[in-house]
């Protein structure tokens, strides 16, 4: 961070830079003050003045970085700046959270400090890994694969039948506006407490977005391209493979990404309705009952990481597969 700021010195006004430096100093000083016994702000409220200074400095730092990003030529540098600004923002938020929790001695039942959550995360890694394996590796992955796969196959099957489409599309659209997750108690009743029932909820939740998106994608191919294939005497399979599927890829990836979040939600919520004594949803509901909030937050951290990483991987795969698409090319 500091090296990026020094690059910036030539053009940035000195006053701003002083403020940024003051903000960084205020941040470190505040952390040091609250680092001791909790409740430092209750005893000496005067130190609260450092917080606005810290935020102001942070804001100016982000502003300078943004301006820098707009000026830079090299792609790698722009990407680094694009990463640095939101990271700085998140760091500021986390520090603010930490300061408020320790400075005012907020009881950890209400809101544990990020530091405490981090410590719990690493010390309870084994339990968290078991929960993750139960919920994500079994229920979410299986359900997501089956749901997306069957949605895709059904879309391919009814793509050529306008009659089936007219019957199924309104149902698919209505399904998108109703809370399917409510089906969870029924699935738990049908498939038992273990991960199969969670996977079933995930299958139902992910099926319709995939179906609707794939169908829309299969219809999104350019008429010119279809006609070209026709003049080449391309058969149905070739048309599908060379024209329709590539054009449908952005739609399909859209559904895959939406579904990756939906799947995690479905599995966790389904665990509220009954589960063996392992799993992320189980962990959240029992630890909430025991008022053990840092463990709940650590589980949420796992869920957040799993959700963001799977979303990120899918987005990466999409860029690799749809490099030709205007939306990917515009993003650079």
């Amino acid at each position, binding site marked *: 961070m500091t090296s990026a700021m020094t690059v910036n010195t030539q053009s940035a006004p000195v006053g701003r830079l002083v403020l940024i430096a003051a903000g960084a100093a205020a941040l470190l000083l505040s952390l040091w003050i609250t680092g001791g016994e909790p409740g430092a702000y209750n005893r000496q409220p005067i130190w609260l003045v450092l917080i606005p200074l810290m935020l102001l400095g942070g804001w100016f730092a982000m502003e300078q970085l943004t301006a820098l990003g707009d000026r830079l030529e090299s792609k790698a540098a722009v990407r680094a700046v694009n990463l640095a600004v939101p990271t700085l923002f998140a760091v500021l938020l986390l520090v603010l959270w930490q300061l408020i929790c320790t400075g005012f001695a907020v009881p950890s039942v209400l809101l544990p400090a990020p530091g405490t959550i981090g410590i719990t995360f690493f010390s309870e890694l084994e339990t968290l890994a078991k929960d993750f394996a139960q919920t994500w590796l079994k229920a979410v992955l299986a359900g997501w694969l089956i749901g997306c796969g069957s949605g895709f196959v059904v879309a391919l099957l009814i793509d050529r039948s306008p009659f089936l489409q007219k019957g199924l599309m309104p149902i698919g659209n209505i399904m998108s*506006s109703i809370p399917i997750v409510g*089906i969870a108690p029924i699935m738990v009743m049908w498939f038992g407490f273990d991960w199969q029932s969670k996977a079933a909820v995930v299958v139902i939740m992910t099926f319709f977005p995939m179906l609707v998106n794939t169908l829309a994608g299969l219809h999104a191919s350019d008429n010119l391209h279809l006609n070209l294939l026709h003049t080449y005497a391309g058969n149905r399979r070739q048309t599908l493979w060379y024209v329709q599927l590539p054009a449908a890829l952005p739609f399909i990836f859209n559904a895959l990404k939406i579904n990756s979040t939906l799947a995690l939600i479905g599995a966790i919520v389904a665990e509220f309705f009954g589960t063996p004594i392992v799993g992320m949803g189980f962990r959240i509901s029992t630890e909430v009952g025991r008022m053990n909030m840092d463990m709940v937050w650590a589980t949420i951290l796992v869920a957040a990481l799993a959700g963001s990483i799977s979303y990120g991987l899918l987005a990466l795969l999409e860029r690799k597969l749809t490099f030709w698409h205007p939306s990917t090319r515009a993003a650079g």
Partner: protein
Amino acid sequence: MFKSFHKSQAAALTLMVLALLLLWYAGALWLNSDQLINGYERRNIDWNFSQLVADAYSMKRPMLPTPDQIGAELYKSIFDTAVDSKRSLVYHSAITLSSTLLGFLMGGLLGIVLAIGIVHNRTLERSLMPWVITSQTIPILAIAPMIIVVLGALNFTGLVPKAIISMYLSFFPVTIGMVKGLRAPDKLHMELLATYSAKPGEFFWKLRWPTALPYLFASLKIAIAASLVGAIVAELPTGAQGGLGARLLSGSYYGQTVQIWAALVVAAVLGAVLVALVGMMERKINRRMGIAA
């Protein structure tokens, strides 16, 4: 030509619904019969197929209730029960609906405010936009029970905690849609306003906002559906306090499958109606904006 298309659409839909109903009855027979046959054999009762069918469609706690059982339960709990009774689905729907709407309102406002900030300030865009997107990859519904419990510990119960969850789910589509919408104005129009030396406020109210309205409504349709899901899931941990989610949970505790299905049907209808209402407003606005529906 239009009429024949319309006809075939209706025909296709009817056929599909009929097929689904048929499947449903077959499935109910299949799922319920295991339990029944076990019961017959335990009590050494001779049974034949027609008796099995009759019993399968009239069980008290079936694995899968038939549509007519659900319909009867719906009628009973909507029309035959006093509206303020805890057994009335109208009562539970009203609770869910109020937190849905409050959350939707707060989420919509937050989404619009964020979008305005993001469009007008590049630093905000750079720092906030990635987190707006990341926020949706976090399964926030999973922490719904925690938010409820924590806010409950602060003596903060009732509508607002549930509405906060709905808000979190519904602000995202609005922000994304509005950022797109507020950037949608034609460059020519922007330059025209600049030649009129319009003030920033005029740029906003006379050009950006009207251009963004169709985008807003498209996002609001997604947001209100998400808001309903949020409200229902938020009601799960509050247990007996009421709402469709509480109804689902108590049904699942006591094995009252018909009750679960009735609550599900009401939730589905509620979702479809809410989306349709926003869609109606959208069409009205679009017509005023000169966009053919």
